[in-house]
């Protein structure tokens, strides 16, 4: 009897002991490797045989081809380096990267999304390394404009975005804007819009002519960020939105955001955007625009290659100038940051690789594949048509300080909060005021806790 009892209590004792030994201290403690402070070098050929594991999300047409070419060129230049490319969609990368980074065998180079939810959390967890030392070697600071470097910077503790440490560099430039169908606008007798008022007039004209004004599909939830971002930027202006997203001041319940929410809800009730957009996929909406069934479509410059292939010279690209301003303001920035992990055994090779795929030569490769590089070579003249629209707009927006960050950078949970709130807004489930209250609740919780 005792024997039985003891073996049973033994089982409990063992399982509790195992569980406790695994969980004795707070989760996450002692896992972060210390950042190496050793000397850095540009030497790649002398590193011996190296396999560099690279996680990227360059899956869009054009961009993925450019990436393949660059990887091949790097391996051709340094035959001792083998590149193991792991590529997946943005959403998949966002989900799996945290696990991969916190594991024992992290990739060497990763594309990290900017803002608090991703890059901030990685810096805080000590999972990606500061590139300040490599910046000294490769002089990225003079290649990139200050505004782009800031987006990829954090304080060393990961708590302040746009801090002193550089954690990555980006290949592509991005602005979210309004693609338009030139044929339809000509048919309506209107010009490409450059302000919110003009856009609304054009959409009213399209509606009156029986043409769908703006194709919009939001089943994936992320397009909501772009739609709201573009409208909010055109109303609030660059300064206010930048302060808001970086946590430097302002509130989501400010008048400009409420007006932006009202505007979008208005579009929805007037039938300016696709009816039942929450049940329409982003790709279906884009396909409608590409097939000439709608006048406008809001998306980023990363779709330039796809849209230009589908529509040729019929497509144009524009951004909106806020009232009282003289240059456009819109959501944008740069592609995900190429970062080096703290756990990488070959940081020198990793840094050489990210320099190679981000430098001026790489920029030309991206242009060849109909994609917008983060820094447009000074001697390059864009091809007439959509490319000129996109490149000129990007140049104008970045040089005039008209870039506002993606709104989901605001707090770690803002992506979910904002995207589901926009779905409620377009379906008339909430008033514009209630919509901004939802955003402010998430925001004040995070900003207050910092």
């Amino acid at each position: 009897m005792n024997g039985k009892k003891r073996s049973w209590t033994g089982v409990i004792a063992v399982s509790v002991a195992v569980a406790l030994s695994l969980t004795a201290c707070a989760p996450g403690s002692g896992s972060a490797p210390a950042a190496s402070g050793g000397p850095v070098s540009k030497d790649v050929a002398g590193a011996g045989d190296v396999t560099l594991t690279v996680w990227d999300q360059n899956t869009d047409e054009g961009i993925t081809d450019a990436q393949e070419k660059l990887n091949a060129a790097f391996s051709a230049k340094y035959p001792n380096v083998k590149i193991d490319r792991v590529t997946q969609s943005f959403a998949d990368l966002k989900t799996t990267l945290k696990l991969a980074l916190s594991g024992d065998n992290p990739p060497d180079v990763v594309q990290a999304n900017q803002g608090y939810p991703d890059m901030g959390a990685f810096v805080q967890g000590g999972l990606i390394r500061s590139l300040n030392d490599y910046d000294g070697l490769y002089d990225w600071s003079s290649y990139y404009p200050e505004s782009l470097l800031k987006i990829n910077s954090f304080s060393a503790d990961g708590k302040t975005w746009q801090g002193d440490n550089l954690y990555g560099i980006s290949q592509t430039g991005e602005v979210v804007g309004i693609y338009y169908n030139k044929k339809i606008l000509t048919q309506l007798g209107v010009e490409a819009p450059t302000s919110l008022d003009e856009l609304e007039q054009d959409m009213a004209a399209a509606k009156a002519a029986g043409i769908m004004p703006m194709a919009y599909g939001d089943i994936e939830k992320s397009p909501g960020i772009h739609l709201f971002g573009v409208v909010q930027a055109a109303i609030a202006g660059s300064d206010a939105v930048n302060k808001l997203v970086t946590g430097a001041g302002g509130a989501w319940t400010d008048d400009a955001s409420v007006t932006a929410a009202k505007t979008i809800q208005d579009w929805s009730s007037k039938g300016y955007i696709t009816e039942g957009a929450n049940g329409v996929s982003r790709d279906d909406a884009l396909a409608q625009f590409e097939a000439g069934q709608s006048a406008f479509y809001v998306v980023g410059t990363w779709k330039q290659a796809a849209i230009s292939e589908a529509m040729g010279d019929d497509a144009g690209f524009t951004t909106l100038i806020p009232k009282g301003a003289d240059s456009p303001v819109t959501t944008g920035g740069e592609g995900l940051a190429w970062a080096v992990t703290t756990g990488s055994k070959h940081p020198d090779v990793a840094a050489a690789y990210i320099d190679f795929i981000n430098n001026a030569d790489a920029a030309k490769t991206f242009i060849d594949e109909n994609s917008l590089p983060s820094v447009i070579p000074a001697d390059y003249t864009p091809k007439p048509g959509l490319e000129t629209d996109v490149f000129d707009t990007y140049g104008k927006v970045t040089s005039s300080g008209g870039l506002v960050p993606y709104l989901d950078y605001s707090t770690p949970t803002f992506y979910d909060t904002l995207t589901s709130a926009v779905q409620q807004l377009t379906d008339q489930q909430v008033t514009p005021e209630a919509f901004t209250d939802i955003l402010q609740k998430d925001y004040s919780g995070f900003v207050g806790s910092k």
Partner: protein
Amino acid sequence: MTVTTRLRSGETRTAGVAPSRTRRRRVASLKAFLYVAPALAFSLIFLIVPTLQTAWYSLYDWNGLSVATWAGVQNYIDIVQDEQLRDSFMHVGVLVVFYSFLPIAIALLLTMVISRAHALRGMSFFRTVLFLPQVIASVVIATTWLSIYSPNGLLNTLLRAIGLDSLTHVWLGDFNTALVSVGFVGTWLNVGLCLVLFLSGVGNVQPELFEAARLDGASGLQEFFGITLPALRGQITVALTLTVVSSLKTFDLVYITTRGGPGNSTSVPAFEAYNRAFNSGQVGSAASVAVVLTIGILLITALIGRLQPKDTE
């Protein structure tokens, strides 16, 4: 769980035996323990330890990467206070109706009809067709229904074809219809399972009973409530357990069809747990949702088990 019952029943059996036999039995029990050890180790490593770990995480505020801070029971308080989490548990309550109650009711009705039509030709064919949804991977099912529900999908096309244009909807994109639409997929999915269970139950009823009832002039309905339903009590309990648990665990359908949208109108606890742990960096909160969900499932399963008639245990 298995281990507990085995050891406990062993305990009562060995009570009061002579010392020499006890020693022999102790050796035997050690041997028995060796037999159980691999399975036990397996469940320790892959089930018990992770479960305890999850419970431990649920007491922290943790983003999954940095050092966690102690949160006590705050994550559990949030489940009640946070509208989004509270709603997700409400939604799963609605899904239970669609995943469990409706399929059982429909399957009972079908059983009543089919069991009276013994000679129905091609019976096994229909049974296979009705059971088919259970065999298909849930990702395939979700993708299929996504297309059926899409604005120009099969459902809306059908409605237009019969002149019911006013009823067409963006089914999964509309706040009023999304949850019901997801639920209906569950109904379609589980009817086959329940029906196969019930038909096998009816097959066990002695034909003489039906014969006697018919000779006494019982109507179809009387026959059903007098014979079929009581005979199926065991099968109904099994069907309830299986379908209620599957509805509480719903993840794949929601993940593929709506991702919890529009807004949060189709979010369910399992999806919230996944999303919070892997996407929004709220591992503690995710763990607390998982713990509450697990306890809920265990409680409900135990309650349903009490419906089980003793003789069929």
